[in-house]
């Protein structure tokens, strides 16, 4: 059971999956092969997220925009990583569009404005991470999200 007083962004999560990932031990198969969708407009950051998550054992589908994600019609992923600042429909609008039945979503943002960050924190259905984030924390958060969804 989660402590409801713990911050929704999970910034203090110490997690076994993170450690095992760093040491190169694969996370358990059922979780690791789970599909993760990445929606990020920055080409390099998108690529780096794919490389990192695939190296950790996840399957990844990547999209450069919210519109591209919505148009894809692929099966529901186990977890989503969504950039807040997207051209066109932004990350928060995308989560709204998908509705309540969405998979656990991790919002990421490089914004410096506190009001935008607070808004993203409130909207993140699973966690919010600020760029540049600790990749190990992202992996552990994704693992946790996939666990929860399973």
């Amino acid at each position: 059971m989660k402590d409801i007083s713990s911050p929704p962004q999970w910034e203090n999560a110490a997690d076994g999956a993170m450690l095992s990932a760093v040491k190169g031990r694969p996370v358990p198969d059922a979780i690791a092969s789970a599909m993760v969708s990445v929606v990020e407009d920055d080409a390099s950051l998108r690529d780096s997220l794919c490389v990192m998550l695939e190296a950790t054992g996840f399957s990844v589908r990547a999209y450069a925009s919210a519109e591209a994600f919505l148009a894809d019609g692929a099966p529901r992923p186990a977890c989503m990583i969504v950039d807040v600042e997207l051209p066109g429909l932004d990350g928060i609008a995308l989560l709204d569009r998908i509705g309540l039945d969405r998979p656990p979503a991790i919002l990421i943002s490089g914004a410096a404005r506190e009001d935008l960050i607070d808004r993203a924190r409130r909207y993140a259905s699973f966690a919010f991470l600020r760029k540049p984030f600790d990749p190990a924390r992202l992996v552990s958060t994704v693992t946790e999200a996939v666990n929860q969804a399973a």
Partner: protein
Amino acid sequence: MMDDQATAIAGALTGSALTRTILQAAPHAIMMVDAAGRVKAINESALSLFAHAGEAPEDLRVESMLPEVRFVGGPVWTGEDGAGAPVPLGVRHRLTGLRGDGRQAPLIAVFGEAQDETERLFSVFVIDLTDRAALDQEVQSLREELIHAGRVGEMAEMASAIAHEVAQPMSAAKNYLFALKLAMARPQPDGGRKLEELVSKVDAEIDRASGILGRLRNFMRKAPPTRSTHDLNEIVHEAAVLASTGAARLGIRLAFDLAPARPKAIVDKVQVQQVMVNLVRNAIDALETSNDRLIRVRTRDEPTGLVVEVADTGPGLPDSVLARLFEPFTTTKKDGMGLGLSISRRIMEGHGGALEAENQPGGGALFRMRLPHPDRTQTDEASA
């Protein structure tokens, strides 16, 4: 005028109490010297300007006070140009004097002649310009401060976009490094090619972050203004890219139409880029409410001079704003000080150019920077 001076001096010499009082109290330095340059009479202002502490008036020599002038039967020029030629009387000369405290002083001197009963005498009137020069310098330095403050202000408004833009490559680099660590712990069936690929991706991301910081650093640099020859297209393009940091995320496109002949301009690069950044930032703000979000940047080489245009597809400028657009504290922005455009216009005028604004027939605002052709511009190198 010569007669007036002569009269006044004659009066002083003959002891008229009134004239003496006037001369003594005059804020300008006044001396009477003989044909050999010996000081015969001197007022308080001249003493405090030229005398060392405790130096007696009779020890003062014109040559040591005004090194550009000697007295040989009257004032003549020293130095190479026209040495020995008489100094025209009754005319203002800009000279460099040597003050009693040892410092040089910019000053204006007027020499006159007065015939006493017994000998030829010369009057020397001196206006010390030190304070005025200091004031000019102060104004110049305040102007530079203002321009720099404008630059800092532009950047402050962009700070969050820039922070975001640096966070992207940092984040990507960290992700690649994480993958690299995982890969290094495993056997390398491809002979390490995968590792190399990841390392070069990290490298590219660090370069991307450095590029943003480099452009920022160049722009923020507080250097004394210097004009030199630049490729106009290059400085315009570089500034537009800096100013539009993060604009793509807002769906704003930037289109360049740059003069193919790559015209050269003699400008202070950072200052002209400051104007560009100001115009592009304004255009980005103007596009907030528009569906079509395009900024066109054009450079042209026209017979009358060089032209840079920044046009947007925003709502255009209301007539009430257009009339006062370049006045300080005119702003349509919530957080703006309204100094950007007034500083920008000063910068352009300081370059012998202009900054104009109009609404385009098809909608949207257009700003036009004008610069003179290089052959009509003075460089610092050439004028120094």
